[in-house]
């Protein structure tokens, strides 16, 4: 009887410890979100979306150039990264199965684990050095390198889930495999693939380290893709480590916008995957 009591007491204690660990994990989340919401909502204004940063000492200003810059960088990175990721996934699912596909899968996983700052260094040596200058293009290449493995692996997962009978039905009607892939396989996996793309975009939208010495940042509007370009994460970084209260407020507002963007994407992916099931 006593034995049982000790054992159940131990059970209770351990259960309580697991519960405390969970609470301890969730507390920082709550604190960070409360701060972002509190500081962000009190700092944000219409100005934030329409004007560029003011010089130090002047109040106001916004991150309009950073928002547009991030948009440009994401669009360019997607233009480079999505075809590679999606076509790579098509190869793995439709033609793969051999040793080569496991090597490619492994390479993608390893690529995914490489610190993003190294991606930035590689983009620097490949683009910035030969073109003799920091540019939006170099930033986009760095972001694309981060995007590719994420898109590849999620798209592969989604294409694999398309039932083979669908493909066979199309092939039996004499449709060549490539048209089958576009018209049947990709189309029925579209929502899943889109989810993967959105996740990849959410990931690169917040990346700062690979942009430090590729896109570099810009206090003004940039007119060419071969010029340094502003990006929201870079602005948040530079303003956060500056000593100026006004810039801190801009950084908080930027953080709020970025987190809201992530939140929207996360909700969208949830909506997509629920619809599919």
């Amino acid at each position: 009887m006593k034995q049982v009591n000790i054992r159940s007491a131990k059970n209770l204690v351990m259960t309580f410890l697991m519960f405390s660990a969970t609470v301890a994990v969730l507390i920082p989340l709550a604190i960070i979100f409360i701060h972002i919401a509190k500081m962000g909502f009190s700092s944000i204004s219409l100005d934030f979306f329409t004007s560029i940063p003011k010089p130090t000492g002047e109040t106001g200003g916004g991150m309009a150039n950073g928002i547009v810059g991030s948009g440009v960088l994401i669009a360019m990175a997607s233009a480079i990264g999505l075809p590679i990721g999606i076509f790579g996934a098509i190869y793995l699912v439709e033609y793969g199965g051999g040793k080569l596909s496991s090597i490619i899968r492994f390479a993608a996983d390893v690529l995914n684990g490489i610190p993003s700052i190294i991606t930035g260094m590689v983009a620097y040596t490949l683009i910035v050095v030969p073109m003799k200058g920091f540019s939006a293009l170099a930033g986009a290449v760095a972001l694309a390198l981060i995007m590719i493995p994420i898109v590849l692996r999620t798209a592969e997962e989604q294409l694999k889930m398309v039932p083979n009978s669908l493909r066979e039905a199309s092939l039996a009607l004499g449709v060549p495999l490539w048209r089958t892939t576009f018209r049947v396989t990709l189309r029925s996996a579209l929502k899943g693939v889109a989810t993967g793309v959105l996740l990849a975009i959410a990931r690169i939208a917040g990346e700062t380290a690979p942009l430090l010495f590729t896109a570099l940042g810009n206090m003004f509007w940039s007119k060419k893709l071969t010029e340094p370009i502003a990006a929201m994460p870079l602005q948040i970084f530079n303003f956060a480590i500056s000593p100026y209260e006004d810039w801190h407020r801009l950084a908080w507002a930027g953080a709020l916008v970025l987190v809201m963007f992530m939140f929207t994407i996360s909700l969208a992916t949830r909506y997509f995957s629920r619809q599919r099931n």
Partner: protein
Amino acid sequence: MEKESSTGRKAVSAEQSVSQTRSMKKILSGDSIFKGITICFALSILFILLLMVYEMGRESFPSIRQFGLKFITSSTWDAVAEDFGALPFIYGSVISSLLALLLATPLSVGTAIFVTEISQKRIGGIISALVELLAAIPSVIYGLWGVLVMAPWLQRSVQPFLIDHFGYLPFFQGAPYGVSMMAAVIILMIMIVPIITSISKEVLMAIPQSQREAAVALGATRWEMIRMAVLPYGRSGILGAVILGLGRAIGETMAVTMVIGNTPQISLSLLSPAYTMPSVIANEFAETTTRMHSAALMEIGLILLAVTLLVNVLARLLVWSVTRGTAGGGRIQ
């Protein structure tokens, strides 16, 4: 007769031309072109990885040749005299990552166990979603919070308290700066909890239900079931999750750069500022003036790359050894 033979010849040549166009069609058919395109894109991923390793190696070669092994044992970092040693950065990276791992592991594994073994399914789902949210916050926002909220709080209340009560220990000596090794460890801990938790959860969910049922049928309490049936089965997978967390912590750049104080020194005290490998790259790489300076930073990047490659390969093998055979097994984000 002549006519006949000519038609015969014609028939032969027609047959030939048909078979020729057929084989031409086969070569130029949509399918083979398509296959060619997809294989090119797939191979380009492998090419990118090799290119990255090659570029890093090539660019850091001047520094490797110049400093040799001294690069990782010397703690001089002098851009003017072009004398570079990376020891303070290696020290900073190793200590901050290991301490963060030490704190994050029990919390993450505890949370994973709570979610999979103890809580109701719905509550577990909500907790998992919240933890995933934690993973989605960009590094720079952790840094923003760390430098503007957490570091001042550490400087005001936590660090003076530690100095007053534990100041005799070498770990808590010096002035309270706020930005310090301690701040970096806390930020890193918060940042790697989600990855360790979600992979541990995946590992635990892959453990066959029969294991649990067998333990419970023998009269085990829930904790005994977890300790005897669940944890031993998932041990290597959880170890893999922890190592992946280590990989994330070592490569983490922005948040650490913003709170660690960026001072290249080796100090036992958690209160003093330090420096890490990614931070020095982030701070100095855009402003290098000499070839040797950029080569030295490249070599730090190469070391970082080698360590993360090693860690990732090891971790993936470990996780895969547990989750293989289950749906979506071994897939790690």
